[in-house]
């Protein structure tokens, strides 16, 4: 399997305080990688660093053969990194339809396919995003990222704070995406759902990669030690 994303020993600072102390992770083509760790261990900072929203100072991030170090975030997105940010971030005062088309780029993912994945969205085309339920907003955020036809989809806490029924719907759509061969980097707290989907798990602690392996290798012991479950 060829490597799509290779993050190697990146260090990121927020002002004078260091948040990442050397994060390593790789995502292969068609692979689903789970990025795990307790709160405050650097998962979201890692994602922000990959997407160019925060600048890392040391280490390298190579995506699809391109070094991302000097690229601004919009160029990284254009290379094929599609981010679904934490906290269902749609554009609140745009309609569902406008949210979807604003950033659309040509490719496999079209409005019709997004509608097939999330039929609820089509029912609410003309509604403004801030009138959607939390789950619908999350679907919209995923749909919007898919409309950019990303090679790598990054999901940051996509099921956080949602009703169980909606969560199941989102997980089902993630499984559907995986079945289609979509490469995904995913951060989530629901280990029971995450483990069966992930091909590989990466655990962060205090801004460093402390464990990598397949879901099968992720024993109860390791979970207790790093994830506190």
């Amino acid at each position, binding site marked *: 399997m060829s490597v799509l994303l290779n993050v190697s020993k990146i260090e990121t600072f927020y002002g004078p305080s260091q948040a990442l102390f050397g994060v390593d992770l790789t995502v292969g083509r068609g692979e689903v990688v789970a990025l795990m760790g307790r709160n405050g261990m650097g998962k979201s900072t890692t994602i922000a660093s990959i997407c160019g929203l925060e600048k890392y100072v040391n280490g390298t991030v190579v995506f699809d053969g391109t070094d991302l170090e000097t690229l601004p975030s919009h160029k990284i*997105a254009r290379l094929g990194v599609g981010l679904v940010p934490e906290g269902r971030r749609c554009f609140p*005062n745009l309609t569902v339809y406008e949210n979807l088309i604003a950033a659309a780029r040509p490719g496999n993912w079209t409005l019709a396919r997004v509608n097939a994945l999330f039929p609820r969205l089509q029912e609410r085309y003309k509604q403004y995003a801030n009138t959607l339920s939390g789950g619908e907003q999350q679907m919209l955020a995923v749909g919007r990222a898919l409309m*950019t036809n990303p090679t790598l989809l990054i999901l940051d806490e996509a099921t956080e704070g949602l009703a169980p029924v909606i969560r199941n719907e989102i997980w089902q759509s993630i499984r559907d995406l995986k079945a289609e061969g979509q490469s995904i980097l995913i951060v989530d707290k629901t280990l029971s759902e995450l483990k069966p989907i992930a091909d590989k798990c990466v655990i962060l602690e205090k801004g460093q990669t402390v464990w990598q392996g397949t879901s099968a290798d992720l024993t109860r012991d390791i979970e207790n030690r790093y994830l506190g479950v």
Partner: protein
Amino acid sequence: MLNVSRETILNCLLALTLLVVPFIALSLDEPFYVTLATRVAIYALAGVGLNLALGLGGLISFGHAAFFGIGGYAVGILASHALNYEPHFSSPFELEGTTQMLILWLVAMIVSGLAALIIGLFSLRTSGVYFIMITLAFAQMIYYFAISWPAYGGEDGLSIYVRNGFPGVNTLIPINFFLITFGVLMSALFLVATLRNSRFGAALQAARQNEDRLSAVGIKPFNIRLATFVISAMITGLAGALFADLNRFVSPNMLSWHTSGEIMVFVILGGVGRLFGPVAGAALFILFEFIFGGLTEHWMFFLGLVLLAVVLFARGGLIGSLAGKVRYD
């Protein structure tokens, strides 16, 4: 049932009123009101330009007088050369002036657009109060330049002796000139409505709502804003060109910061970001000037009170209070 919003009905009513008033005035033999309506249309057009940047893009430009004035001066300079039979320059080729409105409009729009491109390249790197101040500073630079440029009248301004021509129309007849400005205003409104509903418009509003989120989906907010700023300036520049033709006179006043403030007042009075906001705002402004200006020299005081009331109690402006807030349904 046909689903027409209150705002659409209100917009149609406004457009219709603006169109009908001059004809009624003519039938009552009160030609003065035709000129008044023409001014409303021109001011509204200037506001439509600013509203695109301010309302949709969230770009609080306090320097739109620069574009209004540049549009005006483009007309004044070209027309004065044509009327004096002096070419602008004769080598390497001879460039004559012109009195054809269509060419003048094109030049006015191109020059204001270029000015906006340069101003935007610098000012759009900032935001908030810095953006306001930089746009103001650029406009003031152009204002003082105009004052100190004796070739085209300097502080005294520049007269255009004959109203410029439009193919097949006698533009000296006020109602004809009104119809031209009205047509231009409606075309600009149509353009803005089209832009607003396009992908470009969605991305522009997204840039206002959250820059990072927009770049995370692959669009550079700066480019979208710059394009908007340029289009916005071109519309306001066109309004300046028409204003020059209406008064047959251009002066540095068109470039001063008072004018920037007035254009902003049209937008805020009518409703920021509402399609017909500037039309309602400009109409209200002129009405105020006309009614209270006849009673007291200090009519601006009353306008200030109204503006205060709008900002405090009716954030959606006139359109907002009549048609309701933008419904997120």
